[in-house]
């Protein structure tokens, strides 16, 4: 039971680690790292879901009758692209924030904003 669902345990653990980093860390880069871990956990979830025990990759070949479901794998390719775009944009914003505020720590940025108000 527990070993059979090994992949899903990994997914849950990674997901929680990722979400925790996003919430708990004040450093903008670390937040993005957390976000990436969180998203990767979801990718693993989709990929594990499509794997059929004892089946091969979905390529037509003689003597093979069972294939894994290729659809979730393809979906995840799209999701990975979306993830890359998000990370790239997040990092670009972090660079611009560093130029504008001279810091990438949430607390320091928030303090500077509060003084302006």
């Amino acid at each position, binding site marked *: 039971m527990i070993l059979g669902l090994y992949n899903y345990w990994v997914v849950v653990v990674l997901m929680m680690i990722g*979400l925790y980093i*996003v919430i708990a860390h004040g450093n*903008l880069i670390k*937040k993005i790292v957390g*976000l990436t871990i*969180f*998203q990767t956990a*979801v990718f693993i*979830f*989709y990929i594990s*879901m499509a794997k059929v025990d004892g089946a091969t990759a979905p390529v037509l070949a003689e003597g093979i009758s069972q294939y894994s479901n290729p*659809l*979730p794998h393809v*979906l995840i390719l*799209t*999701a990975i692209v*979306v993830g890359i*775009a*998000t990370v790239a*944009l*997040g990092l670009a*914003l*972090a660079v*611009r*924030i560093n130029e*504008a*505020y001279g810091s990438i720590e949430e607390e320091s*940025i928030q303090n500077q*904003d509060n003084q*302006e*108000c």
Partner: protein
Amino acid sequence: MLIQLPALAVILPLLSAPLCLFLRRSLLAWLFTVIASGLTMLVSITLLQQVMASGTIVYEMGGWSAPWGIEYRIDKLNAYVLLIVSSISTVVLLAAHTSIEKEIPQDRHTLFYVLYLLSLAGLIGVVITGDAFNVFVFLEISSLAAYSLIALGEDRRALWAAYQYLIMGTIGATFILIGIGLMYQMTGTLNMDDLSRRLPEVAQTRTVFAAYAFIIVGVCLKVALFPLHRWLPNAYAYAPSVVTAVLAATSTKVAVYLLIRFTFSIFGISFSFTTVPLQTIFVILGLLGIFAASTTAIFQKNVKHLFAYSSVAQIGYMIVGFSIGTTTGLMATLLHLFNHALMKSALFLALGAVMYRIGSAQLSQFQGLGRQMPFTMAAIVAGGLSLIGVPLTVGFVSKWYLVLAALENGWWPVAVLVLLGSLLALVYVWRIVEAAYFNEPPAGRGAVEEAPLGFLIPVWVLVTANIYFGMDTRLSVQVAQAAAQSLFGVSP
């Protein structure tokens, strides 16, 4: 040609975006974007007419039939939301050329229009598609474009607001992705129509409960439902004026559409409202949102912040209507989608005109503006009256149906609270009126001219729509009613 219309609605803005990149001159890029957005609006109008006349349109992308290929399925609900998104985008865009002249550096104008078109394409795609995974992809296209658009704001706080929105938005989108994955695991399909038929068979499993919870929380992050609204006020306040006007009017509306689609069409009413205690949660959060956000709005010093909090409160009204769970309640929500889009785009665009002339949206700077910018301030007052829900404005129409729906259901305390919430709106709108009309201009400020026509025309088009649709409610009420009825009729 007419058969290809559903595809055109997405392809037009999506392909115009890279083409726009070649137009170096700001004016050319603007004209090009206006044409692309205007054509999209024409397509939406035609689609709405077709749907109202002959029922749901099904379009198979690339000729691949439904459970395998992506299907665009346009019923009364999407056609209605498509019209809202594309028409508001077009009207707001008319002011863009004048507005970004002062707010965005010259060399970024073309990029601004590219992002604008991408955001439009994403929003239209979310609404039009009949495939659950496709929703996620389009949602991210529109969101990524929106983060970048917000970051174009001249204040450095815009960057910080965009970053926070990016983090929250991505968590929301990933939650939706998890939910879609869980649904796929149970049913083996991503097609919404297929899902709605297969989900009831497995509705009593924990996986489906988890899927529903993930999707609702994810969508509510995008809706900015109280208490998940923290990203919204700063994002709206520091984004360029045009961006605020278009985002406030369209992006949260599209998220509300998703909420309705997932709850009513895919999971079905009996699952969403009886198996899961969604009704209780939403009515409480909706009412809390109305009061908490309206009260916060009263104490804001920046008028953009004020209207941003007011947006959170207005989303509360939509959620209350939704949670009543009757045809009239849903109809009130749909009407408010349309009406709130009209009010907020008019208000934020008028604020853009104020920003253009005095370079600030601080309430203290509004003193004496009533005489210096009479047309702009009159537009803000008209929009504000609509926000309160004064008769003869659109705001009245949606509040009327909302109170009616609550009373029909015997929820009179909710009806009373909705009316009390309107009084809070009266307070914050009055603060602007008081500053603009009953105070002298601050010493040291030179003469302020009325806003240029580039602003006044789109602002007054929207204000006129606010009043016109408040008196002649045939279009909005008929379509909203038909959409609400079809959602209750078709779903199990």
